[in-house]
């Protein structure tokens, strides 16, 4: 896949001019957000739950190596094989080795951001292993040759007509735009794949340290099937997904569905401790690959550490006024929206994603909605300062801000500047910020400054 976080501005502009895209986004986002209000307001202790989730995550991240070791120990005792991968290529090679061992031809995948992160599907296909996304949204995106545009609703940028056309083109079926019919076409097509797959790959929503369990939460049943039908199941997940106890799940059960899809609870939860022993159910072997891939960079930073609390629900995206308008693809990265604008530069390098921390109005909605209370706006501001200090931003902008600072610090200079500007303004000489004003009206300069009006007022009152 082509990742282009450095081209955010161009991508965003293109997205803004795509009326169809904006219509699709508005429909999906407003629907989910209004349902979310309903299911969140039912819980009077929502704020407590957020705090508890935050505390559990904080505690785990502070003691991450302990809990990872405990998970590894318990899972291994249960008969699960645990592998650690420091980067994408190591993780992909593990998967390939396992696949080669059983001479795998067909792999079914359930939705996983980590596999997107390491480009696993493309890698397996290059190596001659047919790899099929089985989540309906991911399947649509795979057919279209695109990237997911949201964590939990990957095809929300597409309308039913677009999906209908895609299916008739790629699957050779008669055109229909009815969601029910499209869904059953996908069911039939994928059912065949499930029954013939020799390898199943999934992510994990949580890893439980005390029991060595893998927890997968879903609605469609595709993860359940991907992890039950093929002989081998490989779980690939980030090291930050571990939590201490099974009982901690009770908190996350309440917040995850509500935050991700505005549901009280998802249709299916699999808690997997050990390979299956009774036929015909599988898998005979389970592997868990714990992926670092830049996550320890965050762990080293007191500031950025908290971005690892993220449970990948995608709520901050839906709440973000920028995301609402440009959609997921504009970010040009795997992790999108507000948290993506923290994770992408933090994990892969600020120089590779400089525009993303600036792609925010800092309105704070992302923090308000975040179920684990990550202070996203603070992290964005901090990353901005890092970008400026490292010289990743434009020199011209830096100069302008320097001049502005001098003006703001010196009252006389400020007053002179404002008079000076107004003088030319009255003569009809106005500054032209072409790029800024091409899409919106340029604000008019008031005839009198606030200070002048204020002083006048004081005089009349006195």
């Amino acid at each position: 896949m082509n990742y282009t976080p450095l081209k955010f501005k161009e991508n965003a502009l293109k997205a803004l001019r795509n009326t169809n895209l904006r219509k699709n986004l508005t429909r999906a986002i407003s629907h989910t957000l209004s349902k979310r209000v309903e299911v969140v307001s039912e819980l009077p202790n929502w704020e407590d739950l957020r705090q508890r989730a935050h505390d559990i995550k904080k505690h785990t991240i502070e003691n991450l190596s302990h809990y990872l070791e405990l998970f590894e120990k318990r899972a291994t005792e249960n008969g699960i094989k645990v592998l650690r991968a420091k980067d994408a290529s190591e993780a992909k090679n593990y998967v390939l080795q396992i696949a080669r061992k059983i001479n795998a031809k067909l792999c079914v995948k359930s939705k996983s951001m980590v596999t997107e992160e390491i480009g696993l599907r493309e890698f397996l296909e290059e190596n001659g292993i047919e790899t099929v996304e089985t989540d309906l949204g991911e399947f649509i995106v795979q057919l279209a040759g695109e990237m997911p545009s949201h964590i939990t609703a990957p095809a929300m940028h597409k309308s039913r007509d677009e999906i209908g056309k895609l299916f008739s083109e790629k699957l050779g079926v008669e055109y229909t735009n009815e969601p029910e019919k499209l869904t059953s076409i996908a069911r039939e097509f994928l059912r065949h794949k499930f029954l013939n797959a020799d390898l199943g790959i999934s992510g994990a929503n949580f890893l439980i340290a005390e029991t060595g369990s893998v927890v997968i939460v879903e609605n469609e049943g595709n993860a359940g099937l991907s992890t039950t039908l093929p002989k081998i199941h490989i779980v690939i997940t980030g090291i930050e997904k571990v939590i201490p106890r099974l009982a901690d799940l009770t908190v996350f059960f309440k917040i995850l569905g509500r935050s991700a899809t505005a549901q009280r609870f998802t249709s299916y939860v699999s808690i997997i401790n050990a390979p299956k022993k009774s036929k015909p159910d599988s898998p005979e072997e389970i592997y868990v690959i714990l992926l670092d891939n830049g996550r320890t960079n965050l762990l080293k930073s007191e500031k950025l550490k908290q971005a690892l609390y993220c449970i990948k629900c995608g709520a901050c995206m839906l709440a973000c006024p920028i995301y609402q308008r440009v959609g997921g693809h504009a970010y040009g990265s795997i992790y999108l929206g507000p948290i993506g604008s923290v994770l992408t530069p933090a994990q892969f390098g600020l120089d590779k994603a400089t525009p993303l921390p600036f792609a925010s109005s800092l309105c704070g909605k992302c923090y308000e909605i975040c179920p684990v209370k990550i202070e996203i706006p603070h992290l964005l501001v901090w990353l901005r300062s890092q970008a400026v200090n490292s010289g990743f931003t434009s020199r011209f902008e830096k100069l302008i801000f320097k001049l502005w600072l001098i003006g703001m610090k010196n009252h006389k200079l400020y007053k002179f500047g404002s008079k000076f500007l107004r003088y030319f303004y009255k003569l009809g000489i106005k500054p032209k910020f072409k790029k800024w004003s091409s899409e919106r009206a340029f604000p008019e300069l008031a005839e009198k400054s606030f200070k002048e009006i204020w002083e006048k007022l004081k005089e009349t009152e006195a």
Partner: protein
Amino acid sequence: MKVVGETDLIERFKFEFERVGGIFIETTSQGIFNNISSIITTENIARVFIEKFENEIDDILKNLSVTQIITQPHSIEQLAQIDASITGCDFLVAETGTIVFIHKENRFKSSILLPRIHIIIADRGKICSTFEELFAKTAGKFDSIFMVTGPSRTADIEKVIVPGVHGPQKVYLLLI
């Protein structure tokens, strides 16, 4: 604190389970045969998988009039042919309307997910109030747990909810 009785918990379970699209039927062990027979007619079911119950239910269900009854599946392909499965369960969680399956010999996750219809038979003693209670009861001692809350569903096309994308379209719970 208010002590919540079993009947209240079952009411809560019913409310939550029906809210996610489950079909709740309260019955007796004598009534099961008629209940399931009528589901078989309305849903046009020809092939069923029946889990081992280790009680009189085994004998009752033997006499269902369908084309094929499977009790010992020998392959996934065979399970993929069935229209419905009839299984027991281990717990019911009232707060979310969730049905909990703990895996053991003779319980197949694929039999829960592959057919179009899933019929679960449970007795009232299976009810738990919350997940806290559930996890306290299981104490981490299991190979795997599968939780089902209503039918399989997707909203990936324009947020329209469509049941039965990969798993069952309909989930019936018969409570004895």
